[in-house]
């Protein structure tokens, strides 16, 4: 049974948001006023990098752009670009642009 809503926990400001499964993390962050900065919003600038501390498996698979971008950056596997992630289940994220 798949829940039709998911929660996103933004650690920096302890912000907990509920959204329909499949919603883009960028839309959720914008709508809830989370303290995450977005740059190009299409996966080529890296401003919105986050660490997914819980529920990495609930993030949509990486597309080619995000995969190649993060590969070039040599970062650990739990890092994602917030603008490229759709939320498929509960997750907890920490913004890395500090």
């Amino acid at each position, binding site marked *: 049974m798949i829940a039709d809503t998911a929660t996103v926990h933004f650690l920096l400001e302890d912000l907990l948001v509920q959204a329909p499964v499949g919603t883009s993390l960028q839309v959720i962050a914008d709508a809830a006023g989370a303290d995450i900065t977005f740059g190009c919003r299409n996966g080529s*600038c890296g401003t919105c990098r986050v660490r997914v501390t819980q529920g990495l498996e609930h993030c949509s698979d990486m597309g080619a752009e995000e995969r190649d971008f993060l590969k070039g950056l040599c970062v650990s596997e739990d890092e994602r670009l917030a603008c490229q992630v759709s939320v498929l289940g509960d997750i907890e994220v920490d913004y890395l642009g500090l």
Partner: protein
Amino acid sequence: MPTLTDLMRERVLLLDGGMGTQILANNPTVEDFGGKLADGCMELLNERRPEWIRAIHANYFDAGADAVETNTFGANEVVLGEFGLAHRTREMNTIAARLAKEVALNYDAPKFVIGSVGPGTKLLSLGQIEAAALYHSYHQQMLGLLEGGADAILIETCQDLGQMKTATRAAQAAMAELKIQIPIWVQATVETSGTLLVGTDIASVLTTMERLGISVLGMNCATGPDEMHAHLAHLAENSPLPISCLPNAGLPANVGGQVVYPLGPEAFAERVIHAAKEFGLNIIGGCCGTTPAHIKVLAGRLGELHARPRQGNAERSVSSLYQSVALHQEPAPLIVGERTNANGSKKFRDLLALEDYDGLVGIARDQQREGAHMLDVCTAYVGRDEVRDMEQFLKRAITQTTLPLMIDSTEVNVIERALELAPGKCVVNSINFEDGEGKARKILDLCRDYGAAVVALTIDETGMAKTCAQKVAVAKRLYDLVVGEYGFPPSDLIIDPLTFTLGSGDEEFRRSAVETLEAIREIKAKFPGVLTILGVSNVSFGLNPGTRHVLNALMLYHAVQAGLDLAIFNSSKVLPVAKIPADERRMVEDLIFDRRAENYDPLKIVMATFSAGRGVMTTKLDVTHLSTEARLQADIIDGEKGAILGHVDDALLAFEPLHIINQVLLPAMKIVGDRFGAGEMQLPFVLESAEAMKAAIARIEPHLPKDANTKKGRILLATVKGDVHDIGKNLVDIILTNNGFEVKNLGIKQPIEDILKALEAWPADAIGLSGLLVKSTVVMRENLMLMKDENHQIPVILGGAALTRDYVEKDCRSVYSGPVLYAADAFEGLTQLRAISEGRVKDLMAAAASPSEASGIKVLRKGGSSVPLTPEGQSSWVRREPEPPTPPFWGVREGSHPLPELFDFLDEFALLRNRWGFTQGLLSNEAFEATLRDKAVPVLARWKARLLGEAVLRPRASYGYFPACSRGDALLVYAPDMVPSVPPDQRRIVARLPFPRQATGRRLCIADFFRPESSGQLDVLAMQVVTLGQEAADFAAKLYKADAYSDYFYFHGLATELTEAYAERLHAQVRRELGIHHRDSENRRQLFSQGYQGSRFSYGYPACPELEGNGPILDLLGGSRLGIRMTDSFQMDPEYTTSALVAWHPQARYFAV
């Protein structure tokens, strides 16, 4: 007694300061110079007024200098000749060196004499003097300095690579003759432009000089210490040689007709010591404007410095007069253009026969444009004078092309003359052992003397090596001679394992490609560092053009796979392997790898398959079997703007013109649009299709009936008021026009009143409004309100980066009386325009009313309240840092940086993926990689070469450091002469910059990253602005006007990213100058995502979205001097311009308000 070299190993060496001003302080008269003829000949004073010179040397030694330079800056034949003293050159140098030596011997401590050798008055590389004359002029000087007892030769204030090489050779020869060995030091002079006088960058200087047996490579003159940083940094990072640095006492200013150098002894020493620590300098001293007082302060601080051994990690490179090019290219191979070769190009031969040397240079420039990295030059043509032809060609080519040269000749005298003329580091092509080692040695001697790399063929006394084993055996012998005996670095040996044609069908050569490929692999494995080269197109010699094209491409592909480093190739004919149909590829690979079987000979099949004369694109071979209509469609989809013309002509014989447009071409464009929408096709390819469409329509138009209406509908396009962004709207224009619509493109910054006036004169079916700025979304809504007031009903399509579907379908639709539609890209705009012109707009409006993306989002908990504010009203999340860094100067500096430095900071990922739209979409990983490798990367290489070759960009920059502090949400910026030590009540505020603050969370504001006024201390604010110049904007406009759609698109994207690269480059310099660069990421991609301390904030971005802030930056940095203006919507014009505020605070990062 220790030698100079011993001393340098122990510690940093201190040289003297300026000589000329010290001499002039004696107020020399005509009498001192011995008469009118010799008036001003400073070197004559060594004998006429020795007491003056002795005193100057002694003053510098007393001040603490370890060594002084002889008063021989102009003591060469060319300069002395102007005083009628050329014949005394050798003697005068001996006198000068002896004089200095006498003074040095008065001291107990070891003191040394450095023979100063100046640049003279004539530039070799610009053809102002013959090489032989210049060589003789220096040779005499060197002999004299050696005889006078100099401890080292310093070839200084060098402005020309040709002169540097010639003087160095003269010094080597003089030492060999007199059997005296002393170190040769060389110092280049980099102007404020960032290059040597003739345009050479420091990388090219290093590449050229490194192999010439010199002991020190450094810099002197032209600027003060600070301006040398970028170049010293390059040397520090790449040069294996000790570095010297003898700057002027700052940038000279003209005060009341007098040249004044601004840096006093303390300030000068502070900066030199800073640079010495930063870059690990081995020798320091002064040039113009420095005095014994300057040297004395330096001497007092020498104890702070430690001699650091140098470990150069210079990539092996070759160089031209302008730039250095790495021999190892990523992706491989380095392409050596093969058409400036009398053996390889009929056109070159024909022009040679006509003695059209400018035409020959044209061929060189063409290859540069097409992406060659180096030029193979061969003027051997039976019946002509090869030396003279080489001279005539090179004299033009060395200044008119920027590529390094491969000198291709079998004649020793031709090679020697070419090496004498070519200023950079060349490659000599080639040596072999056909007639034993004698000739090879002669050529290697030249390569050593001129610091050239060498191509070596696997040919020995028994002939050309045909098997892998033979090739490797000859390679071993070549390696032993060149690397073992001659001591060349392995990568200056480039082995050519030979290619033979597969076209003859001779049994002997059937396996020749396999042997060559295996030999490449073995040579790379057995001789680490050695490079390989192939004349790839030999493999297909004698076959028809269609076959050659495919065979060459696949041979190149497999050679690179085997490890090939350089390929001699026609750069315009690189066929992407991915474009070769699979069955053709298999067939040709069977030929290369000699996979014959019973009743199967790939050579016969290949020869039968490829018809003669069809040499351009193999995919066309398939097309020949198609119907005329299908062929045209394939041309559109493949973007074949050349080939389509012939096919249109064929089609016109069989079909009505209207049928061709409506039933054939437009449906093909529809397929293109669908493929783009589905992620199967990328934007650059779409634009190539549009170019093919444009060409086809232009071909058909004269055949259309006079009253034919081919147009599907009409639309007015404009970028809204206050917005200068052109490209999005122009892409829409291109797509709509080439899909059968009539478009009137009104341009940028269009007030709605003007748009409506245009509509009256040119009734259309719809209006399209575009704009990139957030502000423009507001303008669009206001425009719609005004249109409603005037009772307009015409459908309006909105597009632009800052728009969202929600905003258009809710906020904009509600204020207007007619239909309002959102278009995410040009193709969605096309769909909507189609619907409008077919009267289906109502369906579209209904279908478009989709639920908001953001619906269903609910905040469940907003944890811990916001971060509290400090008493100053600032975020308490930001720490107070102990001390702000000290900038090297206060105030503003202007400069320009050469393009290669911008390329160095180019974010190629953002360019290719984002700007150019090469995204994977639905392509497989392999297909996408092939697209990047075979299309995107070569396009970028070609554009880089083109921009280096044509003066399209004019990069200029201004940046500065200002004392500043924060007051609440604003920054107070003080006049730069109000350095932090000036008491607060005397400080003058030149700008107050307000910033927005985050309402919740960390509650950040840019001002928080600077010390508050209440601290009583000032902080440092850096500002910068960079531009590629009006020239760049004009060039983009020119491409668009010429319907060169894909070029326009590529150029715009590249220029936009280069502007960003320039900002990144300057920001890196600011961090270095502030001493906060230690946290700069080594990985470029990390660096581009803020991989450094501090942050660079540009107006218009999330932390400071209001563009108004550009005004004060431009005012303070003197933007108008760079030709930068502000539009009434506060955007900077010309387009490729960007400005920023730089915060050094470690917690300063991007944030959104």
